[in-house]
């Protein structure tokens, strides 16, 4: 049987061998009490990703346009480099606060005016920072998009940062930090990021209650001046419009945008910290969150595809982590692994949530499952199914116009060619079991960063037996602004 179809699973391929036209039609009918076999899949339908067309405005702004025939919506994303990694060292949270304030008043409109104008258009306008970059996004039905883009450009170029709005934004950010830190899973993710990357890339993007309190309007203005600038930024527009029309809209909105003199947008690359095992004692937690983290390749690195497939073998419902933790042992509702990567930093983070008393057992299973990937290679079948799952996930993430625009923007930001959606599919398809093993042996052999957040009294002694170097921090003493985790 020809394996021309990457979406044909091994299970279905076996069935196809026995497919016999009429005979199968009989066997596959459903009759209670009588055996039936599933019918084979039909021939694969082609998957075709649209590729953007690019131009660069005289001010250095890179503009990408992607046509999505039949889309009722037009979406745009502006990515500027910097993000939380460019926050002042003692003041994590500035990039995030700056982004959240873009829509809270411009030289022409109050926060209230912006809000009611957007709602009247039925448009969204969201700005947020991640570790590496800040993104401003909008989408609107096609007939309202030009008007939405005008507000979008005004927010990016001429935010006023009114003092009262800065005060309110700080208050909201402080509450949001408290909400995230209140959940063991949310806190464990923050602690793992901090422990994995000691420096700029370990910072909590939203900051801490203490660091937010220290941020003033000047810090926000300075961040905006240094990092929101056309050179280095990427504007992506997608919808059912010709690239020439998208470029014309970009020119109207951003053609006269210029960088502030003397601004500096340098971002230093990520450096990994020495791996350690950290327990955060949060007695109020309902369950214990466990994270096992390694650094991962950058998006543009040659082993990105192997890392992606290796992570896919670990993750998902039928991935190895969930199989071992949930399906075989019932230790948790689920276990997963996530590979996050970009231009400057990458991480592969396995996580789960368990009863406090089962934390040490679950940690052992997680560690051995991750480590096993190098020693017990994925079979061609296992790899094939996990890979098609990964490819399907990518396909569904770009099913909406705004999802497609975000993916194209991220690829461009990470330095990939314009056809990256399609060429990445090919790269993922080329990964074989040996490639996954090589990657896993090289990357997962090193000691991971381990974080547990929960009621430590119920598991810390058991964890200490296998991990004598464990550092225990009370949740109240935790300071994520510090690479040492405490003040």
């Amino acid at each position, binding site marked *: 049987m020809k394996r021309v179809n990457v979406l044909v699973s091994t299970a279905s391929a076996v069935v196809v061998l026995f497919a016999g036209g009429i005979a199968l039609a009989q066997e596959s009918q459903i009759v209670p009490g009588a055996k039936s076999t599933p019918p084979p899949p039909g021939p694969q339908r082609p998957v075709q990703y649209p590729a953007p067309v690019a131009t660069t405005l005289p001010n250095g702004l890179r503009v990408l346009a992607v046509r999505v025939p039949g889309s009722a*919506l037009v979406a745009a994303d502006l990515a500027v480099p910097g993000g939380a990694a460019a926050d002042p060292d003692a003041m994590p949270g500035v990039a995030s606060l700056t982004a959240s304030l873009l829509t809270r008043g411009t030289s022409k409109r109050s926060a209230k005016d912006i809000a009611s104008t957007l*709602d009247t258009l039925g448009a969204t306008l969201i700005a947020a920072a991640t570790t590496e970059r800040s993104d401003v996004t909008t989408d609107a039905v096609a007939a309202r998009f030009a008007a939405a883009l005008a507000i979008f450009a005004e927010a990016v170029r001429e935010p006023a940062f009114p003092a009262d709005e800065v005060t309110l934004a700080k208050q909201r950010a402080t509450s949001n930090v408290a909400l995230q830190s209140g959940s*063991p899973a949310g806190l464990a993710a923050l602690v793992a990021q901090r422990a994995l990357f000691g420096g700029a890339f370990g910072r909590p993007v939203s900051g801490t209650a203490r660091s937010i309190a220290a941020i003033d309007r000047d810090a926000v203005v300075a961040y905006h001046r240094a990092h929101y600038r056309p050179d280095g930024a990427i504007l992506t527009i997608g919808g059912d419009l010709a690239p020439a029309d998208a470029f014309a809209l970009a020119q109207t909105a951003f053609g006269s945008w210029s960088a502030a003199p003397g601004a500096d947008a340098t971002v230093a690359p990520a450096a990994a910290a020495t791996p350690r095992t950290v327990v955060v004692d949060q007695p109020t937690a309902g369950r214990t969150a466990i994270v096992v983290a390694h650094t991962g390749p950058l998006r543009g690195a040659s082993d990105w595809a192997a890392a992606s497939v290796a992570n896919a073998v670990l993750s998902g419902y039928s991935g190895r982590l969930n199989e071992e933790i949930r399906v075989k042992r019932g230790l948790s509702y689920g276990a997963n692994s996530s590979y996050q990567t970009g231009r400057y930093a990458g991480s592969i983070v396995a996580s789960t949530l368990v009863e406090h008393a089962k934390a040490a057992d679950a940690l052992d299973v997680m560690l051995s499952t991750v480590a096993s990937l190098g020693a017990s290679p994925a079979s061609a079948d296992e790899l094939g199914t996990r890979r098609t799952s990964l490819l399907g996930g990518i396909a569904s993430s770009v099913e909406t116009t705004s999802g497609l625009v975000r993916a194209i923007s991220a690829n461009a930001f990470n330095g990939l060619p314009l056809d990256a959606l399609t060429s990445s599919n090919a790269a993922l398809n080329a990964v074989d079991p040996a490639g996954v093993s090589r990657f896993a042996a090289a990357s997962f052999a090193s000691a991971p960063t381990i974080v547990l957040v929960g009621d430590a009294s119920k598991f810390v002694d058991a964890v200490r037996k296998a991990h004598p170097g464990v550092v225990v921090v009370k949740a109240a003493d935790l300071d994520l602004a510090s690479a040492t985790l405490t003040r």
Partner: protein
Amino acid sequence: MLCEGSIPRAAHQFGMQVFLRVLGFAACALLVVPGASSAQQAPISVAPIAFTQRTLANGLRVVIAEDHRTPTVAIDVGYDVGGKSDPAGRSGFAHLFEHLMFKGTANVKPESMDRFTEDVGGYNNAYTAQDITNYYEIVPSNHLERLLWAEADRMVNLTVDQPNFVTERKVVIGEYDQRILSSPYGMLFELVNRAYTTHPYRFGVIGNPDELNAASLANVIAFHSTFYRPDNATLVLVGDLDPAQANAWVDKYFGPLKKPSAAIPRVTAVEPVQTKQRRIAYTSKSAPLPATLIAYHIPAERSADTPALNVLETLLGSGPSSRLRVALVDTGIASQAAANADTRQQAGLFDVFAIANAGKSTGDLEAALAQQIARVRDEPVPAAELEKAKTQAIATLVRSLQTHDNVAQALVRAAVLDGDPGLVNRAAPEYARVTAADVERVARKYLTVANSTVVAYQTAAQSTGAAK
């Protein structure tokens, strides 16, 4: 699959779950001068979802919508059973049962649905809500026939043994721990069920560990034969399919299934009219900030008042210029605030809720929420604000349903809850017809103090010395 214990309710219960496409757009329209007055905006015109509907001789309702924009197909099988159908003393059972539907049949091993979906680049899941249990798969479209076979198979051939049952019950109790106990505000949305005194909606969907532990394998077998049958199900197919071929496969795999002769039990309890405000105080060990929720009884989703309630929900809680955002979040009283017209198959709830900012109490939140409710009840909604809310509601319809998955979910929900998948195409025109008088009328009718249930969700710190 990460099965959901209850649907996290979308902003609109039937309204936003609709797939609509904008018509009449031309590229030149993009070059309109920005800043044109909102009053002069042309209305957003929307194209309905084209679907066919038929009922097989065994009672299975079949809804098919063809759409070739992406080479995938969504298969949804919605059963008219949910949390409200739980056997007495077995709250949480319908949801537990949903998990067991993944445990294999006479023909396939446990977790085969994952093999048929995840392993070919698709996904699958299921959710149990008060009024529906929906199973769905999104797969490359060449796999449609296999999934039809698999759904027909588990409708009639489910096999569950004691070890599987016990293991999955542990998983469901783990889900309760994770969603309700470990989530700082998980219990808030459970407590709202106490707005009901008589109707089984009062038990919620997720149930509780004691009643789940009391469930037996015999309960499972009885539940399957009672509710999992073609005449209690709606099959929805959306996406890259040939309708003639799809219909032929449906006939082949579902056609032979027998319709049992026993009647399907239905919930007939009617919640009595509430005459006095109900108040619930709860102290959360893990919530970092207090929260307050006010719930009001509203009619079933089929009611003619639903479009106005959905527009009211948008006006109060959607977007940065919504009333709750401006009055509670922008002023610093709350970190989050929202409204939800939680319309159901039977009488539902209209909720407003907020999570405080540091230093603000449940009482502060309640006063601010009640003030905004009083405003919509006592003052006419200005024309421009109403138009804004209607535009937002329609734009959200367009935005929320760009995928085969969401279109199928909307169709199956409307079919099971409202008895008519065609409701998805009536939402936008109905929004467009809502008047300020309609909004004021439904606010006066339902958002009254006597009809309200207030949940004051305290933090351990806030309630020190006063906790019960």
